[in-house]
């Protein structure tokens, strides 16, 4: 054992809440004797939970993109837009900057999350030792941008509340935005349930 020792190898377990270090009983459902919080070396069933949330998010991501998210009624002209058609419309109608922002927030970010989390999960499960540090950084990135992926939902909510000129123009939310919101929530749960320590769990690489 040339590597640096870990708590696991020393038979120790730390409480996440109060920081108390205990002996690891190597049984399930241990609790901190001081604060009563659950003790676990790694988040329990982290990989499968993350997978579950990720798959949920992906399932919701399909209707979120296929169904229209917003209905714009202006002077009797009804226009239903999906995320992608909205981006295209913004681009065509001369605001490419906005189109890029919406495209990034609504398409790139969720896709990126799927990709990153999927890669992390696969690599963790294969106990890969490839680019562990970079993968940890990727995870941090996913956690960080997770908060910003609700942009579309906010836009629709704001427009619905603000644009109410009856006949002149009106904006209504459509089911797609609900699925989009669910996707974002599910990806956030997925990234939350992922334990980045798993990345480092593969042996003989602690230098």
């Amino acid at each position, binding site marked *: 054992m040339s590597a640096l020792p870990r708590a696991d190898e*020393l038979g*120790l*377990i730390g409480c996440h809440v109060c920081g*108390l*270090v*205990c*002996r*690891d*009983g190597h*049984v*399930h*459902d*241990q*609790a*901190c*004797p*001081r604060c*009563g919080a*659950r*003790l676990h070396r790694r988040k*329990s*069933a982290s990989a*499968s*939970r993350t997978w*579950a*949330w990720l*798959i*949920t998010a992906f*399932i*919701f991501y*399909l*209707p979120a993109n296929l*169904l229209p998210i917003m209905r714009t009624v202006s*002077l*009797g*002209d*009804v*226009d*239903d837009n999906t995320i992608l058609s909205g981006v295209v419309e913004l681009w065509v109608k001369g605001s490419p900057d906005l189109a890029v922002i919406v495209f990034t927030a609504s398409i790139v970010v969720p896709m990126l999350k799927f990709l990153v989390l999927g890669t992390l999960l696969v690599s963790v499960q294969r106990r890969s030792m490839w680019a562990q540090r970079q993968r940890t950084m990727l995870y941090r990135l996913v956690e960080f941008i997770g908060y910003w992926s609700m942009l579309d939902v906010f836009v629709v909510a704001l427009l619905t509340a603000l644009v109410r000129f009856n006949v002149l123009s009106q904006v209504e939310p459509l089911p797609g935005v609900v699925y989009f919101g*669910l996707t974002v929530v*599910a990806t956030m749960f997925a990234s939350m*349930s992922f334990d980045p320590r798993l990345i480092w769990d593969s042996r003989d690489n602690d230098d």
Partner: protein
Amino acid sequence: MTEETNPAGDELPQPVVHRRRLGASLIWLVPILAAVVGLSLVVHSWMQAGPSITISFQSAEGLDAGKTTVKYKNVVIGKVTHIRLSPDRSQVLVKVALDKSAEGFARADTRFWVVRPRIGLGGVSGVDTLLSGAFIGADVGTSDETRYDFKGLENPPAVTYGAPGKSFVLHAEDLGSLDIGSPLYFRRVQVGRVASYELDKDGKGVTFTIFIDGPYDQFVTRSSRFWNASGLDVSLGANGLKVNTQSLATVLAGGVAFQDPAGPHDATPAQEGASYRLFDDKATAMAPPDGPPQYIRMRFDQSLRGLAVDAPVEFLGINIGRVVSITMDYDAKRESFPVTVGAVVYPQRLGRAYDKLVAQAQEQNGSPDLAPIMGKLVAHGLRAQARTGNLLTGQLYIAMDFLPKAPKVAFDPTVRPLQIPTAPGSFDKLQEQLAEIVDKVQKIPFDSIGKHLDQTLADLDGTLKQVNGQVLPEFKGTLKDARRTLGTTDNALSPDSPLQQNLQGTLQELQRMARSLRVFSDYLGTHPEALIRGRKSDPAPSKPPTEAQPSKQGSKP
């Protein structure tokens, strides 16, 4: 803390073991739930999706893929998903995803058309599409045959399936100013419209399909007459100027009117699809049935300027037919150009007279042929004349009248068509008489009259000169004398003339004399004895009464 200072020690606390609360595998319920939701969406949309149909139009104007809806009775039953050109680029193929509930619209005889705002002479429609954009209207058919390819109509159909009412067929010689959707009037109430029209197979007429809305369809009876109420019917014929119209809308957009003929008629409501003739105007439509036409021919020796094809043929003032041909002929024997006029007459228009004539012919000849009877009538003086129907326009019509003084002519009842002898028209006679008058006028010796008149005038001129030269100067002198006399008279009458003064003196004398005469008579009145005794000397004057008050008199000034 001891634990911290001795991390590797054995006095580290043992964790408490709790009961297992939640199986980690339960988390898989979440994606399963999501999958169920997703699947239900898919199933729902699959269940919702009806047949996909393709409609071809001439133009995709106003249509928008993903936006334009298909509506039936203003209920959305589908949506346009794709618009593309047909392979030969002659048409636009519009792909429509119908709703599940609208499956029944994929029938062979369902019709589709684009509803756009239309502003026509007959009215304005589809105003709501101005803002919302065009949509595709649908009218579901009744066929059992399923179909997914349709040819879109360019105009909304005039009649929708299932609308209460009946369709009828009209035959006309031409389209006139009618069109699909032209209104149909019954007593000037719009009760239907023209649904379609097409040329007859032989090209000799136009067949209309009309639709009368319920409950007005019951007014169409077996004996109904239809006529074209289109436009402003201005006819300038031998009968004068005639303007006829059904309503202002028909003036511009055309229309058809119908009504039952006056008098007894078959009032049974007509069957669906019954066929009628479309008359050109109300008068011909309402006229009693004409019966079989007869062709007659007339030969006129005079000019027939003003006689036109379709000019009426009248028998004793009753219109019995019309002129159909006017041709010129050459008579080599007489070296003249007679005009042959062919006419179609409807003897049945004579009414009861016709019935009686037929009966008589039947009795005498055993056949209803009227030719022998015509012979008799001609012998009685029946002649055709070209008469002026309208002095203003000079239109001629053919009048058949009895002219007892007409010269006898031979009549051959076997010639077909019947030759009716003619007589010069009354206007022609008038012309002859006028010519005679002109002849007589021409015989008047205007030349010598003129010469005489000229001489007389010259004499008069001489006389006048004499008057001017001799009489007038003398007259002038006389006038001068007269003025002089008048001046003298004027002088004699002026106030300072001696005559006046003498007269005044004389008059004063006379006045004085009158006064003394009055004094004398007064005196005689009081002293009658003076006549005998003469006048007494005057008595002393009595004292004036004012003498008693001298102070008063003196104080006055």
